């Protein structure tokens, strides 16, 4: 994953104009566990959305395996997201009418994995994420921390190239935050999944191997 001269401006050429990102150049390697950090309004979410193909840059290019995804159409982008990127949002990630098991298998189903493989993968992830007991419950019947772990399971189930998580711990207490991050780190090491966070949560930063600090849309630190 490579970003070249990325700019993102909201409401360009109007009085409301916001320059959210300015000349971002970054490369992410396979297996990295990176956090985008910085103050509120510094552009973390904006950058993560661009990487995930949920938004398009005002200028600049984004490459994934030599494909320029910043030039994709919305339909191509949807396909790319389905196949290559797992998302974990801040909260309410799950489909309410589906059981935990069905939620975890949802993307694999869309990608037409066969049922046996899906079942095996669900069991494997359920055990790592400690959600075996709630597989047949509905999202409304489990806690916020459990919901986030189910979201993690869904995001990683089909082994995408990249996992993106925007403040996945924001709605969790410290105990649950720490637990979620430990599990994500385990998965990262076990399955060599590339993970990029946007967060200023200390539990997230603690577990990260690489931290990129943004300030007012500019990278000021990369360690």
């Amino acid at each position, binding site marked *: 994953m490579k970003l070249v001269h990325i700019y993102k401006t909201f409401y360009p050429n109007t009085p409301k104009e916001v320059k959210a990102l300015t000349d971002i150049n970054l490369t992410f390697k396979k297996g990295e566990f990176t956090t985008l950090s910085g103050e509120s309004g510094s552009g973390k979410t904006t950058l993560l959305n661009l990487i995930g193909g*949920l938004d398009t840059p005002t200028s600049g290019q984004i490459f994934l395996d030599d494909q320029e995804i910043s030039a994709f159409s919305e339909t191509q982008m*949807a396909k790319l997201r389905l196949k290559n990127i797992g998302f974990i949002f801040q909260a*309410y990630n799950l489909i309410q009418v589906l059981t935990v098991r069905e939620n975890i298998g949802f993307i694999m189903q869309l990608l037409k994995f066969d049922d046996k493989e899906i079942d095996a993968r669900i069991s494997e992830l359920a055990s790592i994420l400690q959600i075996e007991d709630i597989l047949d419950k509905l999202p409304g019947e489990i806690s916020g921390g459990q919901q986030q772990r189910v979201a993690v399971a869904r995001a990683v189930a089909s082994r995408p190239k990249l996992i993106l998580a925007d403040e996945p711990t924001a709605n969790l207490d410290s105990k649950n935050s720490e637990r979620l991050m430990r599990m994500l780190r385990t998965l990262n090491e076990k399955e060599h999944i590339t993970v990029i966070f946007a967060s200023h949560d200390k539990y997230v930063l603690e577990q990260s191997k690489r931290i990129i600090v943004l300030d007012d849309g500019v990278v000021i630190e990369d360690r």
Partner: protein
Amino acid sequence: MYKIAHHLAWLNLWRRKARSLLVILMIIMSLSGLLALQGLYDGMITHLINTTIRSDSGEISLYAKEYRLDKSLDHILSHVSQVEEELSRIKEISTYSVRLEQEGLIATAHKSLGGTLKGISLENEKSFGRFDTFITKGTYSFGRKNKGALVGSALADKLHLKVGNRLIFTAQDANGEINAISFRISGIFKTGNPSLDENTVFVSMENISQFLGLTESATQIALRIKEADSIKKVQKELQILFPYADILRWDELYPLLIQMRDIMDIFNLTSYAIVFIIAALGIFGVILVSVLERIREFSIMLAIGTPYKMVRTQILLEASFLGLIGYIAGTFLGWILLIYMATAGIDLRSFKAGLELYGYSAIMYADIHFYYFFQAFFAVFFATLLSVLWPLHILKRIKPIQIIQGKML
């Protein structure tokens, strides 16, 4: 993918049970009501047309030219037995009835009124249109000496006539002489055809022929045709065969019936429009609200890469389930109502006075046609399609990530 959409649609339908059931119930009520009404309207019209054909016009009637403009004995069909011979050779004709009528004055001890004396053969009329079933009082006969008369019920009321009473008929005969003849009433009939019930007295053909001084003569020969499809063809044939006669179909003789049928068709169309609107608005409301309240969920689905096509299929299916369940239950209920009304009939006796004006009989039977269910299906089907357009448009327009982050809506 379709399987997942189907699964999601079905689960979501029952996630908001009360709302779904309400819409389904709305469709059921309006649809079954519509079907029942349509069957009843059609039944009324069919009944009217049938009694008219049975009691008077047949599918086709022959008159002497000019007779219908000037009902005088100058314009009558003569050499009837020759005509009958020709008619019996046309295989599409199942039966026919020869009638001779004259207008005159009907008098009783109380009162006198203008009316028509019509000569028929009871046997012929029985096979022609089961005229015997129209008798409400007395018997289907002209008495022992064949000198009796059958009187229309409305006419009998006006003249205060009962079975066994006498009436005197005064009219011109074929030579222009004024003559009178008396009859004892052997029966009273009610056909639902006002032109008969209000002013006609039926007597035997021999009786009236003798009274008018005519033989081998008729004012009308009515025909029953076996197949409805061949009516026009037979009409053309007869026109060539009998150039001196007017050959008229029942719908030409009673254009009002066709007008009534057209009015009923408009009625039916309006009812379909109402069902369509109820179904469309009902489904639209439910789908719109449920899309809006699930907008975040749909956004998450779209963000993680669910194809828009699948979301569209899901919503279409949700709407279709509502429409389809409503349709199936509604047509089933409507069908039961129709079957009931077609066999047991519904008793309109409480409205009798009003309806009789138009010639309806007291118990109405519904018609059932297969196409009712087709029409209903298309009404619900298009309502379903139409109702999801706007909700789908909303979903197409949204930026999922903005909704997930709470920046939109």
